[in-house]
């Protein structure tokens, strides 16, 4: 989760899911694997055993696709922007971007405890019967921390600006 970028009137929080593999790490791993496998296949091809080469090539394509597909979650992000009048949530993945705007005066931040201990809690911003879930990919501790921060920033319903922030 990125630190909030705060100006006098605007606060911006960006949260994104955990990926243990960096793009650079993936590139290095994939490059190393290709180098090894295609070198072996190439050397065997030089000895006349060329049918191994297309199998190696196909396999590397498959590994590349699998890494690409798995790394797609890296592009997922939620951007929460608080202005004096609005709270907006932008949910992004590689291809789409969905923006939901709530009036800050009426917006509520709710963290719902799960009925079963095996299930995650759910953090939402709600207003006028609409709701938007936030941080479903965060750990419980991170979601709890985000909830406290948002409740401070957004304030209670019918409380604008948030009293918790004190006078400007």
């Amino acid at each position, binding site marked *: 989760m990125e630190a909030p970028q705060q100006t006098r009137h605007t606060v911006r929080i960006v949260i994104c899911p955990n990926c243990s593999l960096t793009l650079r790490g993936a590139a290095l791993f994939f490059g190393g694997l290709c180098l090894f496998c295609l070198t072996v296949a190439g050397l065997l091809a030089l000895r006349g*055993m060329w049918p191994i080469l297309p199998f190696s090539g196909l396999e590397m394509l498959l590994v590349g696709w699998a890494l690409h597909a798995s790394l797609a979650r890296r592009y997922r992000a939620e951007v929460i922007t608080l202005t004096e009048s609005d709270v907006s949530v932008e949910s992004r993945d590689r291809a789409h971007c969905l923006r939901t705007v709530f009036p800050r005066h009426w917006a509520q931040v709710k963290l719902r405890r799960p009925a079963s201990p095996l299930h995650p809690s759910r953090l939402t911003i709600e207003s006028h019967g609409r709701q938007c879930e936030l941080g479903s990919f965060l750990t419980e501790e991170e979601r709890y921390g985000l909830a406290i921060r948002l409740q401070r920033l957004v304030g209670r319903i019918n409380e604008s600006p948030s009293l918790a922030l004190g006078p400007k």
Partner: protein
Amino acid sequence: MAEPHAETTAHAEHEHMPHGWRRWVFATNHKDIGTMYLVASCVMFFIGGAAAMVIRAQLFQPGGKLVDPGVFNSLITLHGLIMIFGAIMPAWVGLANWMIPLQIGAPDMALPRLNNLSFWILPFAFSLLIATLFVPGSAPAGGWTMYPPLVLQFGDSFPMLIFAIHLMGISSILGAINVIVTIMNLRAPGMTLLRMPLFVWTWLITAFLLIAVMPVLAGAVTMLLTDHFFGTSFFNAAGGGDPVMFQHIFWFFGHPEVYIMILPAFGVISEIIPTFSRKPLFGYEAMVYATASIAFLSFIVWAHHMFTVGLPVSAQLFFMFSTMLIAVPTGVKVFNWAATMWKGSLTFEPPMLFAVAFLFLFSIGGFSGLMLALVPADYQYHGTYFVVAHFHYVLVSGAAFAIMGAVYYWLPKWSGRMYDMTLAKWHFWLSAIFVNVLFFPQHFLGLAGMPRRIPDYAVQFTDWNMVSSIGGFAFGLSQLLLPYVVWKCVRSGKRVEANKTWDGAHGLEWELPSPAPFHSWTVPPSEALIARGAEH
């Protein structure tokens, strides 16, 4: 500031678990797919075992007439292929499916649909392979190594064999890709590489080996196919090809394949021994580096399988010394396991019994491997029952015992129930005794000169063959206990209340309830949990 847990959600709390046949056919849950792999592996273990029973019955005494020599050779071939590709490898993939996400704090495998596909290819592959018994011109009978020109002499079964091998290879590659991507990208925050359990580490290296060598096998069998049907001469000396080249290519795949079957066993043993010694694993990092070293060395030792084909002396020396070098990282592992047990508070529940047996019996297989690595000695041992004894010590009392130990170790976590300890111990003791009765005499037979892959033998080999066959029947029968113990446990075992079934266990899987919920780690574990689990 108000407590943020303001409300309790009213949304339906259920496991979103599909039911009926769809649950299994369209399975994407790693636990379901792991279970299917393990069940399939058990079925194949008994089919391959049935072939072994016929083989041992035929060899009970000289002049055996139970099956004709052609069928005998087919059974030898199918036994090897089924046990390697159908029993051992799928069992490891099943364990990987079950345990890797639980151990790294991931909600599932990275590519669940691919996971489903890689399992469901297997039944078709093995149906095709077993169907070769019923086609004109006999089933493949050239041994699992499929050396040309012998393998090219079989009729309709030959293309079926090649297609089955391709399917098994595709399944293995898909499984390996899934394991690699899962471990690389789905580790929970804080689960650094050097905090991963050894089982995950050994599987990561195994998956790399699979990806590196499977195209070589695919290319090799495709060249056999084109030699047979399309007039190429890759391995046909009359057309300018080289049949020995097939052996080089095959063993470039085949030797890493041996480590593909044994490295995850090292991982399992590294989980079990610290648990029942109630001590952290001795030399965690050394174990990781030793595993990587073994994997590296596996690529430069292949020709020790073919010392007798007429290699140059320099090549023989290189492959002899590189093979002997493997004893160093393997020794590191064995001594580290022993050091872990040293002054530990040991108890001997079934998983630990299998782990200790693994330690002794795998070492016997390792030592006979060292003997086979010596070029002058290998000229004596090559193609004899000594080799059969060696690799069965490695693969049965090594890999298969580790799989059984793993099942007894994690079964309470999977099922939420405890199995019948007495029956499990009976299973262990019968297995440990009779595996030695079965395979140890084969060392003597090999040293006395009995060739492998023959349906009949000279009378001087009778006594030890009888002993070996009796051991084989008893070992085979005792294995029926394993599915019975599992079935009884799942049906009516005593419920396990604690998350930690074994008091000395460490790792994220033991932080989950028993049985592990259908969806686990939907929320990544905290760093504190990870740190507690990683107390190596």
